[in-house]
């Protein structure tokens, strides 16, 4: 689709250092139709690429491993995991927090960047929202299966039952049920609603009956009416405004699981902002991990531009520093509080039996993002990709350190312990990646991975004539006429 030759790729570089010059959000010689062609083209390829099948085979096999592990767990008992007393929460909760954290990027990009008028979000928000849903699906599995009697999980919901009894609303776990449940629902709504116009595009381009009916049903008969767009935009704005506090609340509530307890290393007021910063950090890292190969494979460099990657690197740098600040604040407070249990927990984290996990975390989360200070390194997709994977590793370890190292040595030294995961723990975790990638691959194959309607809306062609903007206030003044390509 690009008009330039393969040799000359400089037009793809829209990164820049001069803040007075706004970067173009879509580069190359694209018009509305070419955007539709490119995005729908991915879904409409008549033959599924072999690489997709290979990846799908791997990820769906891993998904089967996940289900096999869950089956074994349910039939045998929680004892198949490495849990014990004192460490009664291990991989399952670590994985839960890890996946929920990843599941924050999508809504953050969609909602918060929308409210902040960061229009570069349009190229990546659909993708990130999809990722959010899949991460939340993975996250949702773990609290469900980690309970001792899985078949009674519904007791956590306020459903009238034969015991005439209700759940205990003082428990942070119950807050979690509501927070994660609401988050999953709202993310799904947001994702689906944003996709309706694009599904209509796919419907209108459908060449086969099945596609026509499938996308026709999913797009609910969307006919691009401006009267509909009016309400659609309002609903989108409202959802964004609702999702913004929601996304901040979800990880805060997850952090309450720890902060509300009385365990040293858990009982700390810094957790909500610390967890939210970490969630954004890991969420962006996962978006980068997925988006770099995807844009390469499907030739989307003109829509998901170098500038997009650079912006995400900057966000990772900023949130990485916040997380680093939180780590050091925890140490300071542990010392400053004069609480000997708290002080020991942190000494133990850094120099005790789990020191290896602690320093892995610090290296990946605090040291690695520092390379993004360099413009050259952050604009190199290969470097960025590797760094994003390391950040994911580090963020997993962060949760491991918080959950396991704090529990392993609490108040009474006689009940201290050392937690070791079993092979079942590890395979369940690996299997959850299988599920994540399976869902992701299906998404890439069957749904529009870029919000076409939104990208078109930020293209210069959409703004040739603009008297009296609608009050909801996207800021358009920044597109200079000379930038029209």
């Amino acid at each position, binding site marked *: 689709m690009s008009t330039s030759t393969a040799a000359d790729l400089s037009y793809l570089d829209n990164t820049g250092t001069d803040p007075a010059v706004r970067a173009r959000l879509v580069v190359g010689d694209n018009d509305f139709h070419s955007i539709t062609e490119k995005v729908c083209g991915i879904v409409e390829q008549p033959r599924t690429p072999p690489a997709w099948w290979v990846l799908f085979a791997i990820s769906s096999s891993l998904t089967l491993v996940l289900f096999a592990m869950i089956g074994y767990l349910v039939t045998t008992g929680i004892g198949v995991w490495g849990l014990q007393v004192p460490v009664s929460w291990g991989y399952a909760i670590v994985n839960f927090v890890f996946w929920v954290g990843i599941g924050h990027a999508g809504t953050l990009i969609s909602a918060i960047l929308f409210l902040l008028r960061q229009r570069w979000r349009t190229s990546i928000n659909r993708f990130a929202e999809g990722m959010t849903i899949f991460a939340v699906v993975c996250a949702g599995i773990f609290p469900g299966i980690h309970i001792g009697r899985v078949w009674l999980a519904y007791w956590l919901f306020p459903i009238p039952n034969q015991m005439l009894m209700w759940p*205990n609303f003082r428990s942070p776990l119950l807050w979690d049920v509501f927070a994660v449940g609401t988050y999953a629902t709202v993310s799904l709504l947001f994702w689906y609603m944003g996709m309706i116009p694009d599904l209509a595009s796919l419907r209108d381009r459908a060449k086969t009956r099945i596609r026509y009916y499938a996308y026709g049903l999913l797009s609910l008969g969307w006919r691009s009416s401006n009267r509909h767009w*009016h309400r659609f935009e309002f609903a989108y704005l409202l959802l964004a405004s609702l999702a913004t506090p929601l996304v901040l609340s979800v990880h805060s509530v997850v952090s309450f699981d720890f902060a509300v307890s009385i365990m040293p290393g858990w009982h700390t007021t810094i957790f909500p902002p610390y967890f939210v910063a970490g969630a954004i950090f890991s969420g962006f890292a996962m978006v980068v991990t997925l988006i770099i190969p995807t844009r390469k494979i499907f030739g989307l460099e003109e829509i998901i531009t170098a500038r997009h990657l650079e912006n995400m690197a900057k966000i990772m740098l900023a949130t990485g520093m916040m997380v680093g600040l939180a780590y050091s604040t925890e140490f300071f407070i542990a010392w400053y509080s004069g609480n000997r249990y708290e002080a020991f927990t942190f000494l133990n984290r850094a120099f005790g039996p789990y020191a290896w996990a602690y320093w892995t975390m610090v290296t990946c989360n605090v040291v690695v993002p520092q390379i993004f200070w360099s413009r050259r390194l952050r604009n190199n997709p290969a470097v960025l990709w590797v760094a994003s994977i390391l950040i994911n590793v580090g963020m997993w370890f962060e949760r491991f350190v918080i959950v396991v190292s704090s529990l392993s040595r609490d108040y009474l030294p006689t009940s201290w312990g050392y937690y070791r995961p079993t092979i079942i723990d590890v395979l369940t975790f690996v299997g959850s990646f299988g599920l994540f990638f399976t869902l992701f691959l299906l998404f890439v194959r069957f749904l529009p991975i870029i919000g076409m309607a939104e990208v078109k809306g930020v293209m210069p062609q959409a703004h040739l004539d603009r*008297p009296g903007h609608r009050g909801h206030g996207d800021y358009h003044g920044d597109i200079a006429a000379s930038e029209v390509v």
Partner: protein
Amino acid sequence: MSERTAPAAGEPGALYGYLVEFDKVDELLVGARAVRDAGYTRWDAHTPFVIHGLDAAMGVKKTVLPYLVFGAGLTGTVGGIALQWWTNAVDYPYLISGKPLFSLPANIPVAFETTILFAALTALVAMLALNGLPRLYHPLFTNRAFKRATDDRFFISIEAADPLFDRSATRELLESLSGRTVEVIEEA
């Protein structure tokens, strides 16, 4: 209304309205203003993405959606707190950690989440309901050109049901715009 005989309005074959296609955003905006100024009410513009300024050009009234969402959110807050109060303090009270049966601090997170949940569900459902969606069939879908309304073309449609609709006058109005040919859409 003009010399329309059989079939009656809404029946297959009856006239649904006219449709005109535009290539460019500014042509559409000019057209929309013209139709608005002519006083039509049952007409619409169709665009592949949101066009800023089009609402003003069309004279679209602000939707009531925010009020509905606010009401739903309020219901969520009250419902969330009431649920927690009734279940934990009234219907089945039990003594937990020496704490009171009902104390607001512990009930804030759940009440917050129910607020968001109710409001968000309402935002989507009410948006669809106010838009009359899902409506899988629509006469406009019979037009081949209209398929590009979700791609890169812009349209204005005027319904025959509009009180001002007149086969020739409305056609003239639409032809005076800088769009392509005016298409006749029939019910099917």
